[in-house]
């Protein structure tokens, strides 16, 4: 089963405010060759945009696990919880 199909099953109360920021896009471009965030995020929130030469962040699909905050080798992801009442809302848990 494809990840996109699985994410389609998740219930979100999407905030218009983005709760994730890349601190310095230059770090992704110049220092981070491997870009592990594009793999370790269980929701594939992070994707390398080859045209724009930056990590694109699909914060709307964030499952709020916190992996990115710990996994980014440059500590370059500023990940917080969404505002109260927003974000993922599990049906089963």
């Amino acid at each position: 089963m494809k990840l996109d199909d699985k994410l389609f099953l998740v219930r979100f109360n999407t905030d218009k405010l983005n709760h994730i920021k890349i601190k310095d896009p230059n770090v992704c471009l110049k220092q981070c060759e491997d870009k592990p965030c594009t793999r370790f995020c269980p929701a594939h929130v992070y994707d390398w945009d080859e045209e724009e030469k930056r990590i694109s962040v699909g914060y709307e699909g964030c499952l709020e696990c916190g992996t990115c905050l710990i996994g980014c080798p440059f500590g370059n992801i500023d990940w917080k919880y969404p505002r109260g009442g927003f974000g993922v809302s599990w049906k089963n848990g």
Partner: protein
Amino acid sequence: MENFDVIVVGGGPAGLSAALSAAKAGMKTVVIERGDYPGTKNVMGGILYTKATDMVVPEFWKEAPLERPIIEQRIAMLSGDESIMAGYRDPAWGVEPFNAHSILRVKFDSWLAKQAEKAGVLILTETLVEDLLYQDDRVVGVRTGRAEGDLGAKVVIIAEGVNNFLAVKAGLAKPLKPQAVAVTVKEVIALPKEKIEDRFCLDEGQGATIELYGDSTAGLMGVGFIYTNKESISIGVGAILDPMIRNNWTPNDLLENLKSKPYVKRLLQGGETKEYLAHLIPEGGYTSVPKLHRQGVLVVGDTAMLMNSLNREGSNLAMISGKIAGEVAAQTIKTGDVSDQAMTVYETRLRDSFVLKDLHHYRHMGMFFEKNEHLLKTYPKLLSQAAKMYLSADGTPKKARQKEIIKMAFEHRSKLGLIKDVYGAWRALL
């Protein structure tokens, strides 16, 4: 600013247990929860242990939304398409006083929150706590994301879960490291109850668990799991973040890898995936436990890294730590002394209980597995080859076959290596 005796940050098992015990001791208590209601942000595998839960809500099984009492626990080691299994079954675990149940956290946590409300706890939902409030060096409440959202308290109990933002800000904990967390993903897959009971050989209503090692995590340090719910199966896989990154795995690919194993595939056949979930599990063990208290503050549950992964126990450690914290908060407030010194009672009581005793007992385990990444690659393969050779009736005399097995084992691992592994495991686990 509204004032409380006790503010609990986070409505999971640890926070709700803390609030319940504080309220029962007469404290004006609020739980601040960022979700729409306690449960909607919460994920675990999910096994709930009877004894610990009973200490928080006596005879909870008569009312609580539980899935199935666990009467059988299996361990499987996967090697390619092959598997080796061991298990323990006792139908007596299917009736009172039980040992453990499978649960789904959205249902269970919301029920637990209602018990807290009945005991007088206020549940403030859709509210994110952003920081603690200080007066000089004293913690006097919390700052929430709401307008004019400051709330005062004599004691704040931090039950924010594995992502320990507040505990770090308060100088109690350190930011988590990729070696100390397991990234875990899970699917809840709907299946008719008759199918579940047939496939797992269960009587009506009974439940079973399977933990899977080896190729279930593609040899990464971690574990796969399958738990039976009433009309669904929870299947998941967790692996330590650091090796997952180094080996270029994505969590969902690991889960799909597990689901594709012949033995697993057959159990799930015909099921329909209802939800895909992700969560971090604190795996740092004893040495990662933060400072558990300061003046006016206690740290509980996952935030305190109270997780015994070998025995797959976490919810019970969370609930007991919460219960004790609620009691200590009430006791210190009543005596009018919430100093750091007075709060040490909490740590002492955790040390006297199984919670910190078990973590201390397994204190070498994390390092042992971290330094021996071959274990979950070598041994599942070695053991299944040994089993296959032993069980193959191909005309080879048994004495010669046994010699072949020993020879094969030493091809996988040198004599010295085997001795080192056994000694290391003995030291780490016993």
